[in-house]
């Protein structure tokens, strides 16, 4: 299905947001660098090997982790496999429709996946059972439950929070006792959108609806960059990108404290 070129936003709302942006104000009264409150709850799904529900303002995402024994990729016979998928069920927004993953959902899943993979968060080399034959496959499934903007950060945070407390289900496969999934330090993702030459962190839905450009950066514990993604049709200046990364480094420290507690 073709993705609509322009999201349906009324002219009056568009004008209102544009006027606010000129005064460097946001529709929900936040400052340009102000993140919404974050709430993380872990281990809420009994059938999953790991789970976390993350709220960023009114946005709510549930991450569930399942592990299965499977075959490794031929080019990494001694490493486990991780795969990330995102579901945008019609429950979460009047705009979401049932069906196979849309390009939006696929981009979202791949950006979250890259942050986790490139920060070497999951120790895949420790997930080998028999080299070339059997390894653990880690399924990261993200279920969006309520959509009020910034799914990139909410999904990344939910995945990281769930993986931190994930169990390897050895008992189910009669391979000894269950153990903790080996993980390192999680990536922290920060997303910005730009509208009317105004670049804001953690966009709410209203801001996303009129955004011309989007930028996501995943940072490791040293504040180094592990993954980035620029999205949508508009552009950023070089200075804006540099500035975004610096702003993200400040915010990521706060989010990391929540995550690593």
């Amino acid at each position, binding site marked *: 299905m073709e993705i609509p070129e322009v999201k349906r936003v009324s002219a009056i709302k568009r004008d209102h947001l544009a006027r606010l942006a000129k005064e460097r104000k946001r529709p929900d009264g936040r400052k340009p660098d102000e993140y919404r409150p974050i709430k993380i709850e872990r281990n*809420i799904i009994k*059938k*999953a090997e790991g789970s976390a529900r993350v709220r960023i303002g009114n946005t709510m995402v549930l991450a569930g982790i399942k592990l299965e024994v499977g075959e490794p990729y031929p080019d990494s016979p001694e490493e486990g496999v991780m795969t990330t998928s995102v579901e945008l069920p019609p429950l*979460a927004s009047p705009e979401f429709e049932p069906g196979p993953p849309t390009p939006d959902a696929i981009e979202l899943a791949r950006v979250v996946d890259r942050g986790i993979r490139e920060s070497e968060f999951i120790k895949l080399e420790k997930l080998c059972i028999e080299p070339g034959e059997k390894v653990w496959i880690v399924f990261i499934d993200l279920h969006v439950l309520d959509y009020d903007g910034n799914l990139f950060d909410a999904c990344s945070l939910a995945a990281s929070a769930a993986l931190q407390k994930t169990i390897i289900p050895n008992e189910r496969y009669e391979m000894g006792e269950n153990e903790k999934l080996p993980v390192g330090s999680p990536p922290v993702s920060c997303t910005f959108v730009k509208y009317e030459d105004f670049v804001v962190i953690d966009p709410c839905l209203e801001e996303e609806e009129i955004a011309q450009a989007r930028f996501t950066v995943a940072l490791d514990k040293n504040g180094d960059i592990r993954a980035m993604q620029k999205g949508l049709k508009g552009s950023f200046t070089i200075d804006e990108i540099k500035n975004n990364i610096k702003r993200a480094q400040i915010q990521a420290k706060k989010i990391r404290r929540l995550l690593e507690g």
Partner: protein
Amino acid sequence: MLIKDGKRVDGRKPDELRPIKIEAGVLYRADGSCYLEWGGNKVLAAVYGPREALPRHIQDPTKALVNARYNMASFSVEERKRPGPDRRSIEISKVTSEALESVIFTELFPRTVIDISIEVLDAEAGTRCAGITAAGVALADAGIPMRDIPVACAAGKVDGTIVLDLTSEEDQEGDADLPVAIAPRTEEILLLQMDGHMTYKEFEEALELAIKGCKEIAKLQRKALLNKYKAFEVG
């Protein structure tokens, strides 16, 4: 042996429900919503609409369409489920839509659709009943005019005994499963399915037990809805 000294595997009596927790109005975007925990089940239901039915050729000029979608999260079961609808969930979606439509005053909203999303987040037997029960609360929360709030519960036969609200072990190893949805005021049957083996006498007993279970749950549904509006009470 699933029943010993009149007690079931999880310690319940034959006519006892698993613990149920219902919360109304939990989602920000939805017009109405409900979160329900029932034993090991965790279910979210959301209602959108009545809204314009699209594409237009599906519209009914005399009434609203009722479109429920039952979906299981991939991590809600022991072996990961592939995301997306399978034959089982398509059937459940269909019978759920029909059960809910029977209580809704659809003729008030011609050319529209009422979408009901049921997401099973954690599953442990009886998810369709949990879904219908949650959907009933979500519909009421959305202010959809209804003759009654639909509610569902299963009864079954385990070790020759008629029991209420089967666990997954009882469902898999028991003799029969009978999920029922009703309009509790009139006791009209909105949904009825059965698999297994029961005599007519046993069916009668099981149906009576299921209806008794439904009525007990109906009280919890009402309580959940009242609780939501308590927050708005003055003084």
